[in-house]
């Protein structure tokens, strides 16, 4: 059953068509990837889903609800969370506070309740703190709750951002280049972690990724964008052999010369490196 359906979504910035009549379907509890060269419109598509940008045409339906006209906070309430290409934590708040903000949608205390500190508010706060600490442990950041987000090392910041996104108890998690700037060992760990999210929490995951090794190993479905248009869709194996994809990545004419070798090395090294890691 599809959790997310996009129909003919178009987003223009002035004369530039960033996303062009994109049709896209995402099945429940899958891990899917969107790939494509720089400027292909991947992040813009993410922004359309989360409400950062409003699609000019077309519609996006999440869990049976049309969301393409909703504000980002409403969309978040429906159960979509995301991370960002260049990490966007709240730098001057602690790790714990970052997660607590992520829990915001599930807390209901009013300002009067907060001032008087009613039993309900107190119980809710206690529960929220407990939940936040649990999430810190879940992403392996136990004991770092009081550190300001900006003082965390890079890898920890990535994981904190995911923890913050998870705090919303999302049904759909959008990860924008989760392994950017990581070395192969760290990427392996991240891939395993993303699988855990799906297997243990049952979250549907859509990611944008440039590391082909990561994409091919983790995705069940891959969508390829180029100049805002979908040029291919399918399983990793189908994508690897698709001539249009190779052309988009390597340039016109190269498809005939090196159909398989171009992509095969990145795939073939994968079992070896995962065994090493």
């Amino acid at each position, binding site marked *: 059953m599809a959790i997310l359906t996009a129909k003919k979504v178009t987003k223009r910035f002035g004369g530039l068509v960033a996303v062009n009549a994109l049709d896209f379907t995402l099945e429940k509890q899958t891990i899917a990837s969107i790939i494509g060269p720089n400027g292909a419109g991947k992040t813009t598509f993410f922004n359309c889903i989360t409400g950062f940008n409003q699609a000019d045409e077309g519609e996006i339906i999440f869990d049976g609800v049309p969301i393409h006209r909703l504000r*980002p906070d409403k969309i978040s309430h429906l159960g979509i969370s995301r991370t960002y290409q260049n990490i966007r934590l709240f730098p*001057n*708040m602690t790790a714990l506070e970052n997660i607590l903000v992520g829990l915001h949608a599930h807390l209901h205390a009013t300002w009067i309740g907060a001032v008087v500190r009613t039993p309900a508010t107190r119980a809710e706060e206690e529960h929220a703190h407990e939940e936040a600490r649990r999430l810190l442990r879940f992403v392996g950041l136990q004991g770092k709750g009081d*550190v300001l987000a900006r003082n965390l090392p890079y890898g920890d910041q990535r994981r904190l951002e995911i923890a913050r996104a998870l705090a919303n108890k999302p049904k759909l998690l959008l990860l924008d280049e989760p392994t950017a700037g990581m070395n192969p060992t760290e990427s392996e760990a991240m891939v395993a972690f993303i699988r855990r999210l799906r297997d243990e929490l049952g979250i549907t995951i859509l990611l944008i990724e440039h590391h082909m090794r990561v994409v091919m190993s983790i995705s069940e479905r891959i969508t390829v964008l180029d100049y805002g248009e979908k040029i291919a869709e399918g399983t990793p194996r189908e994508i690897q052999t698709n001539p249009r994809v190779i052309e988009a990545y390597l340039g016109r004419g190269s498809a005939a010369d090196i159909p398989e070798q171009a992509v095969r090395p990145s795939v073939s090294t994968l079992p070896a490196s995962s065994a090493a890691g």
Partner: protein
Amino acid sequence: MNELRRLPVWHSVRIGLIGGVIMLYICLVGMVEVFGRSDIIERVISLGQVLLLLTGLGAGYLAARRAGEPTNALTVLISGVVAGGLTGGLLTGLVVIGSVVNLRAVFINASPALYNALTLGAGPNGAWIPLVGGAALGLVAALFCLLPRRVRQSIVNGLVGVLLAGLFSGLLRVILAARPGWSAELGRFLFASEGLTLAGALLFFILAGGLALLWSQSQATVRERITRLPEAQRKTLRWAMLGLAVILILIFPQISGAFIAQVIVLVGIFALMGLGLNITLGMAGLFDLGFVAFFAISAYTVGLLTSTGEHGIAQWSWWAAAPVGVLLAMIAGAFFGLPVLGIRGDYLAIATLGFGEIVRLLVGSDFLRPWLGGSFGILAIPKPWIGNLELAGPQQIYYLAVFGAVLVAFVAVRLRDSRLGRAWMAIREDEDVAEALGINLVQTKLLAYMLGGAFAGLGGAIFAALVGSIFPHSMNLLVSVNVVALLIVGGMGSIPGVIVGAFALIGLPELFREFDEYRYLLYGIALIAMMLAKPEGLWPSAAIRRELHTDETDETETNPGSSSTVPAS
């Protein structure tokens, strides 16, 4: 030139020249003469002389300390003398030039009286006196540099004690003289009609220096003993301290007299506004340069509803009117927040600036004069009553202000630690991400404006009760700027910082009224110095302090770490 720079004397020369320029500045803006009138110790030393002495000593000390890196007494002494001598030397130059050329055409303060003051009455013939005096000061400062640290500290503390006692001698004398008997006797012993007596100065010096010395020696052991106490006893100790503080706060106005009580009420009112702005600006990051508007709206509401004069409409009691004022300020917050919701950062400052000016111009306008009194304001606002007790003067309003500030600070702390406080901070840090995490920007921002406005409104209501009349000119831009400044000085986003900032920026200038026209000069210098030396504020918020702390530990932790990785690679 480069050769010259390598000489050890170079630094002394530079510091000496800087000191000299500062001295010239102090002399030529007329501070020596004006402050020469207020004595620190009667007939011994005036504030003007203290300023000059401090500059000379400071130059000598800085130069000597710089030279003292590899400890060598002779270099230290020479550096001090050179810097001090140069500092004084510039004054000698001033006297010499001043006796030949008439500088008064440009510098109105370069009078013979100034030259006499600088040469201890000898006039142009004594032009050498500042030079030698400066060198002597430099020597003293350098000798001081060679003293052991503990001795140095107690001397400085003693001198600061004398200086403070001298500065506030007028106030302290009045307080002591208010009660006859031993208190008045003590006052006559310590304070002369102007400044301290010699005996008083000595007493303060010994007291401040000695106490500081005692404290520095016993501080560690006292701390240790407290931490070794069982939890139950520590708790009682904390409660006892709190109780003592409450009692002190309660009896304070009876001891301090009306003037200081009035200053504290003003501090309280500004603290209320500061706490309000701390929500909009400090927590939610929404700049507001029109904050005085909420203050004005509430003050005028209370004025209109309670006044027994011509513009009064209801003659309510203050207690009935104040909540209405606060509520209206809150509504004004929402009303004012709506149009500026989409504006961010610097643009917001300009938009809000306009709002504050609109309110000030409206209440002062001829158009609204039949209702708001125009520039004549609203008069005859009665004082609040508690039962049969009238809160007649500042000594009684004091309780209202302190209670209001404590209440609002409590509310602010609760809000900060709640879901809402976190949402505000998230908006301050990254508005888009906050929205993507499910925070309703419209609601949350409006609530920040409303609660901030309500806090400022309470300040306005108390102000109306304190002054008993309201005029448009007390609602000017300077109030808003002061509130922003006290937030920055105290530490952005920090609730105790607001209180500290209010004392530093509102309380101290009130107490230094005798500096009259130089008050704001010093205020400006203090602000700049403060931003250079401690940009995070006097009492930064817990997170910032923690960060400053972790930075230190990080350094100590990474240093051995990085050195150990070098051989490994």
